[in-house]
C-alpha cells in the first residue's frame, strides 16, 4: 500500500479503514489490529467521526416489517427462543455450561503439545512486558476430542503462534480467541485466523500474568468478532495452557 506524504503509514491505513476502501484481507487485518491497539483504533475512530456526517446525505429506505419481527424474536424471550439481552444485564451466565463443553469431557484427555511447524512465519509484534521465560502452549480440541489448533504463547514476542490441525470453513464468520482464568469471565484475545499457520499479536497487557492452567477457547462469531465482548457463538474448541 502506497503512503501519502505528510502521513504516517498508520494514519493512511486508519483513514482507508474508516472510509471502507480496504480490500478484504487488509480490512480484516486492520480490524484485528483495532482490537489490540487502542491508539490505532482511536485513529480510525477519528476519521470515522470526520466522515460520518456524509451519511446524512443518504436517503431513508423503509425496510419491510419482517425485519423488526426477526430482530424482536432474537432479543425478546417472549417472542421466540434464543433471546439475547443487552450485555449490561450480564446474560452471559451460562459460563459453567460453556466451559463444560470441552473441559469436563474427554477433550482434556486429548490435550497434547504440538511441535511448532518450522514454516510458521515470523511473528509480527515484538511487544514485551515483564516476560516470564516459559513458553505456554495448548492444543485446542472440540468436544469430540478432535484437535483443531495448537496455540503457543511466546511471551518474548508478545504473540500467540497458531497452528491449525484441521481446516474449517466458516464462511461469513470469524473465529475469536478467548482466555479464561479461574472463575473470571472469558476475555477476548481478538479475532484470529484459523485457516493457516500464523502469528497473532496480542497486547502484553491483555495477556500479562497468564499462568499454566488458564484455558484458551475459540468461538465462532459474527464478522469482526463478538458484538458483546463475551462469546456469543458456538465454542468449537478449548484447551488448557501448559508450560512447554
Amino acid at each position, binding site marked *: 500500500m502506497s503512503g501519502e506524504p505528510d502521513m504516517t503509514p498508520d494514519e493512511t491505513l486508519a483513514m482507508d479503514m474508516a472510509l471502507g476502501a480496504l480490500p478484504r484481507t487488509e480490512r480484516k487485518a486492520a480490524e484485528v489490529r483495532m482490537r489490540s491497539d487502542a491508539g490505532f483504533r482511536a485513529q480510525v475512530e477519528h476519521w470515522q467521526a470526520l466522515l460520518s456526517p456524509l451519511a446524512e446525505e443518504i436517503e431513508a429506505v423503509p425496510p419491510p416489517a419482517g425485519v423488526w419481527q426477526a430482530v424482536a424474536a432474537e432479543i425478546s424471550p417472549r417472542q421466540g427462543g434464543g433471546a*439475547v439481552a443487552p450485555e449490561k444485564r450480564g446474560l452471559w451466565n451460562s459460563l459453567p455450561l460453556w466451559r463444560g463443553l470441552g473441559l469436563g469431557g474427554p477433550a482434556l484427555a486429548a490435550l497434547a503439545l504440538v511441535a511448532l511447524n518450522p514454516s510458521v512465519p515470523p511473528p509480527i509484534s515484538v511487544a514485551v512486558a515483564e516476560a516470564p521465560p516459559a513458553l505456554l502452549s495448548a492444543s485446542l480440541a472440540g468436544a469430540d476430542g478432535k484437535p483443531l489448533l495448537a496455540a503457543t504463547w511466546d511471551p518474548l514476542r508478545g504473540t500467540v503462534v497458531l497452528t491449525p490441525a484441521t481446516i474449517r470453513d466458516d464462511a461469513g464468520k470469524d473465529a475469536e480467541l478467548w482466555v479464561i482464568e479461574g472463575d473470571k469471565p472469558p476475555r477476548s484475545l481478538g479475532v484470529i485466523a484459523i485457516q493457516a499457520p500464523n502469528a497473532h499479536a496480542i497486547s502484553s497487557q491483555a495477556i500479562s500474568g497468564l499462568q499454566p492452567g488458564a484455558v484458551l477457547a475459540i468461538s465462532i462469531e459474527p464478522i469482526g468478532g463478538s458484538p458483546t465482548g463475551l462469546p456469543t457463538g458456538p465454542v468449537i474448541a478449548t484447551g488448557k495452557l501448559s508450560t512447554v
Partner: protein
Amino acid sequence: MSGAAELAALLARAADGDELAFRDFYDRTAGKLFGVIVRILPERGEAEDVLQDVYVTIWRKAAEFDPSRASAVTWTATIARNRAIDRLRAKGSRPTSPLEDAGMVADTAPLADTLIDSARGAASVQAALAMLDPRQAAAIRSCYFEGLTYEELAVREGVPVGTLKSWVRRGIIKMRDAMHASAVQ
C-alpha cells in the same frame, strides 16, 4: 427535547432492557440505516439480513453508546456501514456501475427531523466536499456510500489505482483541514 436527545434517551432505556423503547428507536432509525446498507448491498434480502444483524448488535451494545462522543444516528450508521462492508467483502467483488449513477446524491428532501441530528456537521462536510474537484468529491462519496475498494473504483474510473488513492486521501485531508478551519472560526 431535540431528536438527537430523544434517540439517545431511547438507547439508554434499551440498554436497561426496555424493548418498547428499542422498538421506538428502531422505528425512527431503521429507514436511515436500511438506506445506508442498501447503497452498499443492493440485493434486498441480503440488506435485510444485515439490517437485522445491526439492530441485534445495537441492542446488545446499547450500554456502550456514549452521546458525548457521537450522535445516536452517527454511532448506529457506523455500525451499519461496517457490517454492510464486511458482508460485501466476504462475498468478493461486485458489479460496478457508472460513476454518474453512483455519485448521485440522494435528494435531502424530507428526512424526518429526528434524523438530522448533526445538520451542522453535515453542512460542514458538504461545504468541504464542495471545495474539492467534483470528480474527487464523487470518488470519496463512492467509497463511502458504496463501500468500493480503491481498486474497484480505479477500474471504474479508468485511472491507475495509485492515482486514485492519492486523489481520495488528499481530498479527505483537505476536507479535514477545511472543517477544522471552519470549526476554529
